[in-house]
């Protein structure tokens, strides 16, 4: 039997109890008792050295005397609860006069439990064990929280790296074709977005432009978007579609990108700007964010009711042609730009977006794009968009050949 009891003692001995008491007789007696019970004991002779020991040793349990000079028991507790590093410490407060009001005050000021100086050996044992039990649970919780936080940081770093990759896929703003200027803004909601836009250089004064929106939230839409944008590269389109016609491109993309097993899909607008014939051709698949603002002031939303990609493999997407003139501006955008709620839940909406852009008049395209994003932010009252926001503005400049 003696060997068993030694083992048990050795096990408990890892737990540390701090005793803070200015009165030597009581402190030494309690310390001796706790050591006999198998605990490692640290003694502090006043509140200040007690706080130092608490910070240094992080004991499992602190047993604290109420009456002490300078920092008394309740003040000690208050300081502990205000210190982010110490606030979860378990504190057992000792007092010689255990009036209910006093106990209430001690608990209110931060003690976890009470122990009368007149308590029996059994009660002391029971309260110390209960305090240690709580401390063990709290420590376990802290460890788990720390672990979750570390994993979260790793994930966030990975997401940021993926987000940088997605942003590296976006086209550089500027003159994208002689006589065609492009400006864009991109504000993914989670750092990593499911909205993507790009240009396809067909050569000979012809340019493809698209903006797509993958449904769903998180990493999966971003992966799917990157995959569709790979499909929409020039070489791939020439190989698999053999045409620069927007309708044919979407008809083929619709076959290549069926609904996912969770019912996720893309909406997209694909446009082709032919500067030789001054024609803007476009096709949309469930996408409502595109309009043409003519130099004359006419405003034309390029929407038509049709299925998003993947809804029905037999869908044939049709191309619409418009004539364009110098000064015309084409905007492709995600619905995340105008589907932003204000404090009362009212959405900014397409009409207000149109009004805003009209209000900018002939101001430079860069100002209009940045200003529209700012106006949406003003409407919602904060910087963080609930959904991805992408806006691409394209202007046919006057200097066309």
């Amino acid at each position: 039997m003696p060997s068993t009891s030694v083992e048990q003692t050795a096990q408990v001995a890892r737990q540390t109890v701090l005793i803070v008491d200015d009165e030597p007789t009581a402190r030494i007696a309690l310390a001796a008792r706790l050591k006999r019970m198998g605990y490692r004991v640290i003694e502090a002779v006043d509140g200040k050295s007690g706080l130092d020991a608490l910070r240094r040793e992080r004991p499992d349990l602190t047993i604290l005397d109420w009456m002490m000079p300078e920092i008394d028991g309740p003040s000690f507790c208050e300081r502990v609860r205000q210190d982010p590093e110490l606030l979860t410490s378990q504190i057992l407060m000792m007092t010689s006069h255990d009036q209910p009001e006093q106990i209430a005050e001690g608990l209110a000021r931060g003690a976890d439990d009470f122990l009368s100086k007149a308590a029996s050996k059994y009660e002391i044992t029971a309260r110390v064990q209960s305090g240690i039990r709580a401390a063990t649970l709290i420590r376990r919780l802290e460890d788990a929280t720390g672990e979750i936080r570390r994993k979260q940081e790793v994930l966030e770093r990975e997401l940021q790296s993926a987000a940088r990759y997605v942003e590296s896929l976006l086209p550089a703003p500027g003159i994208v074709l002689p006589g065609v200027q492009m400006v864009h803004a991109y504000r993914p909601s989670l750092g990593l977005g499911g909205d993507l836009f790009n240009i396809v250089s067909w050569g000979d004064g012809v340019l493809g432009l698209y903006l797509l929106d993958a449904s769903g939230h998180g990493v999966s839409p971003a992966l799917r978007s990157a995959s569709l944008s790979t499909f929409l590269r020039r070489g791939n389109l020439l190989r698999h579609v053999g045409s620069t016609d927007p309708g044919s491109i979407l008809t083929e993309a619709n076959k290549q990108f069926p609904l996912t097993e969770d019912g996720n899909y893309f909406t997209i607008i694909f446009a082709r700007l032919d500067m030789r014939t001054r024609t803007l051709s476009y096709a949309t698949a469930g996408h409502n964010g595109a309009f043409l603002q003519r130099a004359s002031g006419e405003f034309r939303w390029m929407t038509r009711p049709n299925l998003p990609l993947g809804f029905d493999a037999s869908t044939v997407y049709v191309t619409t042609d418009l004539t364009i003139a110098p000064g015309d501006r084409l905007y492709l955008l995600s619905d995340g730009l105008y589907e932003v709620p204000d404090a009362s839940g009212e959405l900014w909406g397409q009409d207000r977006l149109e009004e805003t852009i009209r209000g900018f008049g002939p101001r430079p395209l860069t100002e209009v794009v940045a200003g529209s994003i700012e106006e949406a932010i003003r409407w919602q009252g904060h910087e963080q968009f609930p959904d991805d926001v992408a806006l691409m503005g394209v202007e046919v400049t006057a200097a066309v050949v």
Partner: protein
Amino acid sequence: MAMQVKERPVPNGVVLELTGDLTYANREQFKTAVEAIRQKGCRHLILNMSEVRFVDSSGLGLLALVSQNFKLGQGKVSMLKPQSYVREIMSLANIQKLIPVYDNEQDALASQQRAA
């Protein structure tokens, strides 16, 4: 808002009464309810949308998915009485091309008999 689903058998089909929002947050619940009905061999699913206030982009995708899955088993999906806002969302995405919309149950049921 959460969603409630209630299933009611009708001749040659099942009416699924939906209450609440058909959105990303409620996708699992909707999928589970519909899948259970399909596995029982139902050939005509009628979604009663009269108590659905809102359908988001995920909800649209689920409707398309359900329609595709029923079609694979020679079945079909119809929709009953969507509210005007939901009806507008549906028509912007042309969903009625996949899922016919009816204003009363008799018409929805009659469509099935004609199809059969």
